[in-house]
């Protein structure tokens, strides 16, 4: 097996993740608490949408089913992040403790060893809720499902997840530069991402630009959803999602690599 080959690399990632998943599942009560809690968290947002749309037909021109699609994309991206890439969140801690040492002397990319280093079981709840919401939404929206459109949806939604993951990685990588605040920045950015649960057209121009260009959270949910639904004249912007994803992945990777060169281990 050569780890330079993508398939072998992916298989190794699954192996690491699988081992941690098995370990995590040993505490059955924890599993249920986390799954139920994460479902509850997402459910409150859905109840809010339900209560609002019980009184109006559309929000900024978006129907309930369409808003639910936007909402579900954020929930799913968070779910994938928790279930498969939870280790990213532990990077500041690992850097602080010098726990990156051994990952640097193993023949597997450091970034993948880090990302696969933990499993967030709450991701199961998020994926369940997000999947159900998306299924419900897609069954209600007025879209002509040609094979091309299905392929487009898959490509855009996968890109959306990549964007969310890249932002998380880039923000946790800040820990290579700033020590004290490094635990706060990723979580704070994650909170900004909550804004993307609603159509960005509800926000002021400044926030809209920030969510599009500065930290492209709008490409996690709003733009890809608009493109798939063919919603509005600007729906073509969503077609850029894979490009934005590629850009984000490259930037996050570069930030991580640059940071790694500054890694100082610990005990000095």
């Amino acid at each position, binding site marked *: 097996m050569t780890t330079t080959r993508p398939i072998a690399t992916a298989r190794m990632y699954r192996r690491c993740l699988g081992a941690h998943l098995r370990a995590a599942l040993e*505490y059955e*009560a*924890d599993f249920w*608490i*986390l799954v*139920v*809690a*994460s479902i*509850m*968290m997402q*459910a*409150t947002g859905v*109840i*809010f949408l339900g*209560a*609002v749309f019980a*009184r*109006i037909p559309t*929000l*900024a021109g978006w129907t309930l089913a369409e808003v639910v699609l936007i909402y579900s994309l954020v929930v799913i991206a968070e779910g994938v992040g928790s279930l498969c890439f939870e280790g990213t969140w532990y990077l500041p801690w690992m850097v602080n403790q010098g726990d990156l040492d051994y990952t640097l002397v193993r023949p597997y990319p450091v970034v993948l060893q880090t990302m696969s280093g933990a499993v967030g079981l*709450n991701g199961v709840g998020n994926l369940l809720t997000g999947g159900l919401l998306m299924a419900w939404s897609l069954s209600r929206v007025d879209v002509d499902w040609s094979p091309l459109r299905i392929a487009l949806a898959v490509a855009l939604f996968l890109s959306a997840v990549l964007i969310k993951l890249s932002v998380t990685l880039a923000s946790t990588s800040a820990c290579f530069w700033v020590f*004290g*605040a490094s*635990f*706060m920045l990723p*979580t*704070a950015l994650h*909170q*900004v991402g*909550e*804004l993307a*649960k*609603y159509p960005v057209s*509800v*926000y*002021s121009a400044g*926030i809209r630009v920030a969510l599009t260009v500065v930290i492209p959270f709008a490409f996690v949910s709003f733009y890809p959803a608009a493109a798939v639904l063919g919603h509005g004249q600007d729906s073509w912007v969503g077609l850029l999602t894979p490009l934005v994803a590629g850009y984000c992945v490259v930037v996050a990777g570069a930030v991580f690599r640059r940071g790694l060169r500054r890694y100082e281990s610990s005990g000095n």
Partner: protein
Amino acid sequence: MAARAYLCMVKVSARTVLTYRANFVLGLFAVFFQLLAMLYVWRLLLESGKDFGGYTWPQMKAYLLVAFVTSSLVSAYGDFRMAARIRDGLVSLDLVKPVTYQTARFAETVGRAALELAVTFAVAGSIALVTGGIPVPDLPQLLLFAVSIAAVVPLKFLVVYLSTLLCFWTQNYMGVAWARTSLVALLSGSLIPLVLLPSWLQTTAMLLPFASLTATPAAIYLGQATGGEALGLLLTQAGWVTVLWVAGRLVWRFAVRQLTVHGG
């Protein structure tokens, strides 16, 4: 003698509040972005001219800001430390101290609450100014509001405290905290005014202590409850504080018995 010990804890906690500032700011951040999203969504909704429980845009702004304050209070993560001490068995060291555990934790909460109140009110006030102001009630009503906010501190402490005690039975406090946050958001009215929820949820919320956390201060601030009705709401808050305080003591006693039986 004991009272002086608790007073000392209040002071110490107030002084060490800065060590928790990262967590506090983080918690504030989380609530802040939710607030931001809500402000924009509600402005749009109310501009549509549809009826949302009779709220005008300035009133809704005031409601959301009150909800922001009540959601940010008692969130300085003293509960995570308590949960960790329970999980690691260190809590047995707290048992031998000559103070009541619950009162001691409450004293710490009070110590932090002063700064939390100052910061959250400053943030809320700034937002109110930036967004074009909110209605301000007259002085008597404002006093009633102050009392209801003061009552939120022990009440929220008790909700957090009781849920943290669950750590005697489960390892995973993260999940417990998330579930509690969701439940409180939904049933306190901080997510959306209770009148806009389906009636069965409204009834549930009214029968539980959660409505006293946000819906009560908001109703008093907006003048939806005045005079006798407002006093009734404050009495309800006091009632829940009493009930939950006793419940906390009972659960604690039960939990500790379990701890000593199983040897922590």
